[in-house]
């Protein structure tokens, strides 16, 4: 079946008034086909000042972070605080299905642009307010950041080092800005649920989404360990937190890279030790594993430490991380190389799935490779349709061509700082 060119959210218009908290949610909707119009303050939003930058030179149109999180969107600038800005926003909102906003609780309402005001004339509108802590409560007005959410949400209490790797280590906040990703994933889910409801009933609604709530949910069984057993987990290098210490999982390979080779208690039976032995023996690294005595499960039980910490660790230490990863997987051991982001570009599997996406930057006359989508939709593609907008790039197109403002009006609004 040939895929049509439009994504599953084609036909939807989204107004995005979002900083680091919501821009990834907007990207998901835009890459999935929605017409996402990003509304920034005149001059551009602060998310444009976050590095890294093209050639390490800062500039509003040079932030690679902004590039990544704002693909497939169009962009306008608008001063919501001005009377004319409010009017223009109301006109845009009347054309929209969804407003995604990350302002402080109450800010849009103080401008008479909150859900109550906007929905009064458009009951189909969906407004999602994605904030650090939600629209009410004792922490409502607290400041936040990715690090702060990783602390309060429980990510840090679960992540860090074995004492043998880094004595007295602090809890470590996992990198990459994932508090915002987690908040954005749940916000996307809530918006889609509201859309499904709207297709059935014709009614929109307001969504109050919280990054803190979202992060607090995302530590797998840590909360269950406490609720059901009163246990608080400890941090361990490169593997699950646990109520009590578990065997290590990461081993250093010949090339200095690491392999996650968690064998798990149940996997070391006579058959699996035999398969490991035959694999290692091909490289002269089986140690004593070919010995017949390992046909006895009790002998394996007594020698787990030797098998894992000496034979397996030694095998990995004498091969490259990639060799171990692929050879293990071909033998049905779910091991993986700890790959750095730049090492993913040469992965043939990603090539087979058409993952990497060439995105044209016409303003630079260059094309760059971007990470594409996490899934293949066989009926409506999930794909990047264009690079992130330059500051105010679509002011003429949206305010002029779509809302019908004249050239003169646009020039005047630009001069007076409204757009």
């Amino acid at each position, binding site marked *: 079946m040939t895929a049509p060119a439009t994504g599953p959210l084609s036909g939807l218009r989204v107004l995005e008034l979002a900083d680091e908290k919501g821009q990834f949610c907007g990207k998901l909707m835009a890459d999935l086909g929605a017409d996402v119009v990003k509304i920034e303050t005149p001059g551009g939003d602060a998310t444009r000042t976050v590095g890294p930058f093209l050639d390490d030179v800062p500039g509003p149109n040079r932030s690679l*972070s902004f590039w990544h999180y704002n693909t497939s969107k169009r962009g306008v600038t608008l001063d919501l605080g001005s009377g004319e800005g409010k009017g223009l926003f109301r006109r845009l909102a009347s054309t929209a299905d969804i407003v995604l906003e990350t302002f402080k609780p109450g800010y849009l309402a103080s401008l008479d642009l909150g859900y109550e005001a906007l929905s009064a004339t458009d009951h189909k509108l969906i407004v999602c307010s994605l904030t650090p802590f939600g629209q009410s409560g004792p922490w409502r007005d607290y400041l936040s950041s990715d690090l702060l959410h990783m602390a309060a949400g429980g990510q840090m209490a679960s992540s860090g080092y074995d004492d043998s790797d880094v004595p007295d280590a602090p809890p470590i906040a996992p990198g990459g800005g994932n508090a915002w990703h987690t908040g954005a994933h749940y916000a996307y889910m809530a918006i889609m649920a509201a859309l499904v409801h709207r297709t059935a009933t014709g009614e929109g609604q307001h969504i109050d989404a919280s990054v803190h709530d979202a992060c607090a949910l995302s530590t797998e069984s840590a909360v269950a360990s406490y609720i*059901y057993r009163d246990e608080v*987990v400890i941090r361990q290098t*490169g593997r699950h937190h646990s109520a009590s210490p578990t065997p290590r999982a990461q081993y250093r390979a010949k090339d200095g890279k690491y392999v996650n080779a968690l064998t798990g208690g149940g996997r070391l039976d006579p058959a699996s030790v035999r398969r490991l032995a035959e694999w290692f023996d091909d490289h002269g690294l089986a140690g004593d594993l070919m010995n017949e005595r390992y046909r006895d499960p009790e002998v394996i039980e007594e020698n787990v430490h030797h098998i894992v910490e000496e034979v397996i660790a030694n095998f990995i230490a004498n091969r490259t991380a990639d060799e171990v990863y692929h050879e293990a997987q071909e033998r049905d051991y779910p091991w993986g190389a700890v790959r750095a982001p730049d090492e993913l570009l040469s992965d043939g*599997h990603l090539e087979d799935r058409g993952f990497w996406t060439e995105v044209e930057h016409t303003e630079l006359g260059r094309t760059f490779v*971007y990470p594409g989508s996490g899934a293949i939709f066989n009926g409506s593609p999930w794909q990047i349709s264009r690079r992130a907008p330059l500051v105010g790039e679509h002011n003429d197109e949206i305010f002029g061509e779509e809302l019908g403002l004249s050239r003169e009006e646009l020039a005047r609004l630009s001069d007076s700082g409204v757009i």
Partner: protein
Amino acid sequence: MALPRALQGIRVVDFTWVRAGPWATRWLGALGAEVIKVEWPEAERGRQSGGNTTPPDVERGLNTSGNFNDTNANKLSVTLNVRSPRGMDLIRRLISVSDAVIENFSSRVLTSWGLGYEELRKLRSDIVYVSMSGFGHTGRHHHYKTFGPVAQAVSGLTFLSGLPDKPPAGWGWSYLDDTGGLYGAMGVLTGIYHRNVTGEGQHIDLSQMITGITLNGPAILDHTVNGRPSRREGFPPGNATHWPGAPLLNNYRGPTAAPHNAYRTSPGGYNDWCVIACFSNGEWQRLAQLMGSPDWATATELAGLDGRLRRQQALDRGIEAWTSTLDKYEVTETCQEAGVRAMPVQSSEDRVEHDPQLRHRDMYLALEHPELGSRKLQNAPFKLRATPAVNHRPSPLIGEHNRQVFEDILGLAHEDLVSGYEDGTFWPVDRVRYPYMEEMLK
């Protein structure tokens, strides 16, 4: 409940197991979908996984895992031997009256059962089929297997977390089971929305590992655009935005700032830590005042970001000398009231018992479970005003809803249900039945 649910009338056939898939369907259930979990006790993975979370005074078994209870709230459970002709016939009939099918098996399992997408379409032409395998259903490594930490390692997520010149710290749990689960739910919702608008179903082929890659965007662009290697001096810089002495480059968490770290708090226990971050000179000045404006903190060389970045170690020592005298919640309140970014490092106990915001948001409300008693379950992190997503039932006992699903939905006669227990369609003939099953068969 007075208010409707967003997914009212949507039926999902749920073949998922372990964590990522069940985490997806849990949210579909909370949103109001009728989620029918299809299980078989002999091939069961998930009712006892995720470490031991059975209360110490309860016998471990298929119906007593706390983690399972939280991960599988809001669903119905049927047991069905899909490898028997009768079981396969019933599952095909169930799919034909459902909106979506979701599974997280390895890549060829459903096709080997004769339930690949083309077959599913014949049963229900507009079916939304979401597969959640480790590497996806296409590509040379589709047969590779993952669990959370391995997918995280291969995707690049693990590498970005840790201290320089140390092994990667990575993530202390299966972040990509949580996140993979979210993508599973997002996929079903997106597919259902698209179907409601166009009348067309589709196959959504998710890869747990690849969704992880998409979370490393700025790090990848720093390489594809700037040619910067990911393995470099001072990277990753732990909780800091920049490792002292290393070249000043972005660490992909957000703005470059100092202070930006974790600090010990009183009384010095395992989780007695807080984090503080100052994103402007003004925020730093306010922090210095809170600390009593000591000479070291008001020194002019710390007034600007460059100076603070160069002197991070001394800065962090000074801040920790102050935080060590306070409880982590005191640090948080003191700082936040003065407009300084701070938060406690919260353990699971802290979140459930001490976090006033999560309490205000009703994040942990209890439901009664027949074997586990009244237990708090984790609630949705969003408030849909017209269609709240609220946990409305605890996890199902295995096979608890066979009668409801096979008789009420598929119209099976009661004697056919009974005979299905005798011929091994609904439960292995040589396996002891739970009392609630006997009750169902009366």
